[in-house]
């Protein structure tokens, strides 16, 4: 259970569903431990190996609808903290909530909007009109869902201080609340201060319908605590026909059971595939909490569970089993090795070589990414050269990029020549003594590398980096296993200075100022967090690469004109122009190596052979209500 201190698994994933900015994931959680929910949510169309985000000609089938049968048994690695739709901010619980309560929209393959409770559209990308479906009902006594349901929630809950909801900031722009207006019984609009063609992709307007009468008492009292602890919200008793299933029982320690919702509102939708007309096709869903990975896999093998995340080492085993298959679904959390370029980084000696572009390039040349992908992820990962997975439509193409860590750009010679030229740039007398990089005092350069405790894949990953750096760069790496929360508090985040105004910038604990502002404890390198390269809206990546952004724990100062280029991209008028601008950014990133960008592991999720529905696509799960068992 050790690792299954992964509430982390959820964190790693929350981004897909929610705001891009919650971009922080604990590395490794994604691939191996992030089995919470086991991918019950993701879905897709036919296997599109060359285009994992792409759409597919939906196989409309022969018009015969599947029959309703069986219970879908899924597994979670950790218990749920809350099912309160307003306050939940974890991926795992989000999946459970969405069995009973649809959000307003989602995406289908091809990054097309999938309207659920409403369709959002805009002529000018500035005023977004939401048109609701007209057959949505809460359970008694809460009545019908209308536009007011949403505008009330936005204005009285999300855009207030007291409620302290996780999504609150989605409803502000430049610290001003967005103007939201009801324009009809089933229509309202959101006015942005400036056009944003990728507004939907940010997931900012994401909302669940909550009855006004349920919220009102808390709104009147400004009672956040009562709101969080409200039994109807926690037990999802108000969901009416708003989800494919209704919650029967939530046993805090062991899981949740759901039963089929016979009059799911999407059955009447005419803009969705035919299969929705009698959806869902399971009589019920059962989520069981099973902490042990071995037990989850055993349950999948014996048929007690219909889905579980399969670690890379066992994918071929489960592919070979008659009763199961494994779906390889790309995802956008990368495995990065971050370098501490702040003043308390580089504990090896004087100066901080991490600040030298050439040095970082040298480190990147020292790690064989192809072997890493094969050795740690058994091939179920993509090599990462820049801040975008190769299957993303924004990916500029390998020819344009500096492909460090593969082919000609890998090896001791490549590494050392770059490190040596970096050393020429600094005032301190580092040098190579035989195979070892030594400090001016003559000791071997020795650096710390932190990784999450208790996860095998992570540990292997860290060990591999240590060995490669030792072999090719002559640097000794000391591995430190650490708890992720502890790492965040004492290492990753800086101590906010008493006089933030004195500094050029101070943007909170993840970038509390320039490099002289440091965390409590010194660290050199970390693979604790994987970060989200969010292919739906890569403009958001600026947060990782601007020196005064809100997220720069590693103290990176770009040696390229990052600010201008991102601004340029934001102002792009057409997708073509945007693509070009982003390509330039990604090329610069691959050259500047802000951090060791190593791999994009895929989710490898095992399913019961008779289950129809999952696709090998980034959007797998978009049509979950139509999933079914084949007789």
């Amino acid at each position, binding site marked *: *259970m050790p690792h299954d*201190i992964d*509430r982390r698994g959820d964190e790693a994933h929350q981004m897909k569903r929610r*705001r891009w*900015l*919650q*971009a*922080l994931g604990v590395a490794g959680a994604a691939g191996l431990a992030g089995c919470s929910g086991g991918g019950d949510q993701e879905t897709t169309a036919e296997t599109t190996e060359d285009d994992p985000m792409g759409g597919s000609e939906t196989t409309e089938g022969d018009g015969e609808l599947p029959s309703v049968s069986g219970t879908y*048994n899924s*597994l979670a690695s*950790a*218990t749920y*903290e*809350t*099912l*309160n739709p307003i306050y939940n*901010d974890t991926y795992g619980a989000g999946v459970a909530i969405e069995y009973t309560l649809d959000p307003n929209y989602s995406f289908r393959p091809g990054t097309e909007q999938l309207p659920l409770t409403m369709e959002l559209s805009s002529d000018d990308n500035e005023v977004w009109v939401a048109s609701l479906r007209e057959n949505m009902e809460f359970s008694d006594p809460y009545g019908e869902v209308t536009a007011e349901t949403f505008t009330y929630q936005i204005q009285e809950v999300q855009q207030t*201080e007291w409620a*302290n909801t*996780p999504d609150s*900031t989605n409803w502000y722009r430049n610290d001003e609340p967005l103007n939201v207006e009801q324009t009809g019984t089933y229509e309202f609009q959101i006015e942005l201060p400036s056009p944003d063609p990728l507004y939907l992709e940010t997931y900012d307007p994401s909302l669940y319908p909550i009855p006004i009468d349920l919220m009102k008492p808390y709104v009147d009292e400004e009672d*956040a*605590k009562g709101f*969080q*602890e409200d039994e109807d919200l*926690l037990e999802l008793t108000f969901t009416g026909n708003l989800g494919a299933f209704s919650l029967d029982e939530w*046993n*805090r*320690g*062991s*899981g949740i*059971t759901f039963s089929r919702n016979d009059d799911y509102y999407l059955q009447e939708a005419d803009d969705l595939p035919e299969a929705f007309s009698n959806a869902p096709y399971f009589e019920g869903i059962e989520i*069981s*909490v*099973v*902490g*042990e990975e*071995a*037990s989850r896999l*055993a*349950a999948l*093998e*014996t048929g*007690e*569970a219909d889905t579980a995340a399969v670690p890379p080492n066992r994918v071929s085993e489960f592919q070979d089993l008659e009763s199961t298959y494994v779906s390889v679904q790309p995802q956008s959390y990368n495995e990065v090795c971050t370098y501490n370029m702040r003043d308390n980084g580089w504990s090896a000696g004087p100066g901080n070589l991490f600040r030298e572009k050439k040095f970082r390039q040298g480190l990147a040349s020292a790690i064989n990414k192809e072997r890493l992908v094969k050795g740690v992820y058994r091939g179920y990962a993509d090599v990462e050269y820049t801040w975008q997975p190769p299957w993303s439509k924004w990916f500029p193409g390998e020819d344009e990029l500096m492909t460090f860590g593969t082919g000609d750009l890998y090896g001791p010679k490549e590494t050392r020549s770059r490190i040596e030229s970096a050393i020429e740039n600094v005032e301190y007398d580092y040098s190579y003594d035989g195979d070892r990089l030594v400090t001016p005092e003559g000791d071997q350069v020795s650096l710390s590398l932190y990784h999450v405790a208790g996860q095998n894949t992570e540990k292997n990953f860290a060990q591999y980096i240590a060995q490669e750096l030792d072999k090719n760069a002559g640097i000794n790496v000391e591995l430190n296993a650490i708890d992720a*929360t502890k790492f*965040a*508090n004492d290492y990753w*985040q800086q101590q*906010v200075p008493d006089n933030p105004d004195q500094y050029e910038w101070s*943007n*909170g*604990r*993840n*970038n509390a100022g320039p490099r002289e502002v440091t965390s409590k404890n010194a660290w050199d390198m970390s693979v604790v967090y994987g970060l989200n390269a969010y292919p739906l809206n890569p403009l958001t990546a600026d*947060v990782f690469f601007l020196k005064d952004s*809100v*997220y720069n724990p590693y103290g990176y100062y770009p040696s390229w004109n990052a600010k201008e280029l991102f601004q340029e991209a934001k102002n792009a008028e057409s997708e073509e122009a945007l693509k070009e601008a982003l390509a330039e950014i990604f090329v610069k990133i691959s050259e500047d190596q802000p951090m060791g960008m190593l791999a994009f592991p895929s989710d490898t999720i095992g399913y019961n052979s008779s289950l129809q529905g999952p696709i090998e696509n980034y959007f797998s799960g978009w049509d979950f209500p139509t999933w079914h068992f084949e007789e």
Partner: protein
Amino acid sequence: MGLEWYITRRVAWAVIVTFIIVTLTWALLTAAPNPQVSQAATQAALQGGDPAEARERARELRGLDAPLHERYIDYVTGVYTLEWGWSESRNQPVTEALLESLYYTAQYSVPWTILTILLGPLVGIYSAANQYSWKDHVATGFAFFGYAIPNFFFGIILLLVFGVYLDVVPIVYNTDVAVFSLENAIQLVLPVFVLVTGSIGGTMRVSRNESAEYINADFVKTATAKGVSPLRIYARHILRPTMVPLSTTIVAQLLYLFVGSSLLVEVVFGIPGLGQTTFQAVIAQDTSLVLGSTLFFTFIATVGNLLQDVVYTVLDPRISFDER
């Protein structure tokens, strides 16, 4: 003055002990950083808000902004009025969380405790009566096996063999089955077996060693000479003195396993009992729940020790409670 007074004093003392330990735990938890607060701050920072403000709001929401002594007094009053607070990690009242978990823990603890108390001393005395015979060796071997094999290790191997290879027991613990049903019995066989083999060893061993001392004692020989039936001899002359040190062992063993191995067994077999709940609470740093379960376990341990002392005093007439 006598047994009642002694017990009254011990009970009063038990209350004090519980209080002290809970205070210690409270202090320890208060000193620890609260991850939910820093999470709020991280999130605010990521979203471009003011993390300091978010932190403050989160603290306020969790009542962490009050001065220490106020929070402490609040807490202590809560303890005695049975308002143990709200579990942040499960979003339900702490008492409810504990009761729910206890329900599952009891299902395997009760059979386990009964089996241990019955089988342990019996096998031990049997062993002592047949000292150095093959029977002794087999019994000792079994006891040692159970004692020596790490519970969790034994558990995962049994689960692999019986759950995966033979597929006769379920791997996922099902909370929906009735308590007194065959299904429940089947899913509890392995955990109870693992726990009994674990706890029986120590008990058996102590009872063997202790009773071995008495088997050759003069009073036993006298009794045998007087023609007292062997059963009576074992029950009165050997079991009773053996129970003195044994009571210590049994209580200690059960307590140790209850708070220790039961957690691991729960983890291995996926039983959502007290151990798991506590462990998850610690990981989530769910202060109220950790305190609640600490309180509960402390209570169990205190009562256990109390029983142990009383039994000890009652059983060994040489020690008188008046003098203490």
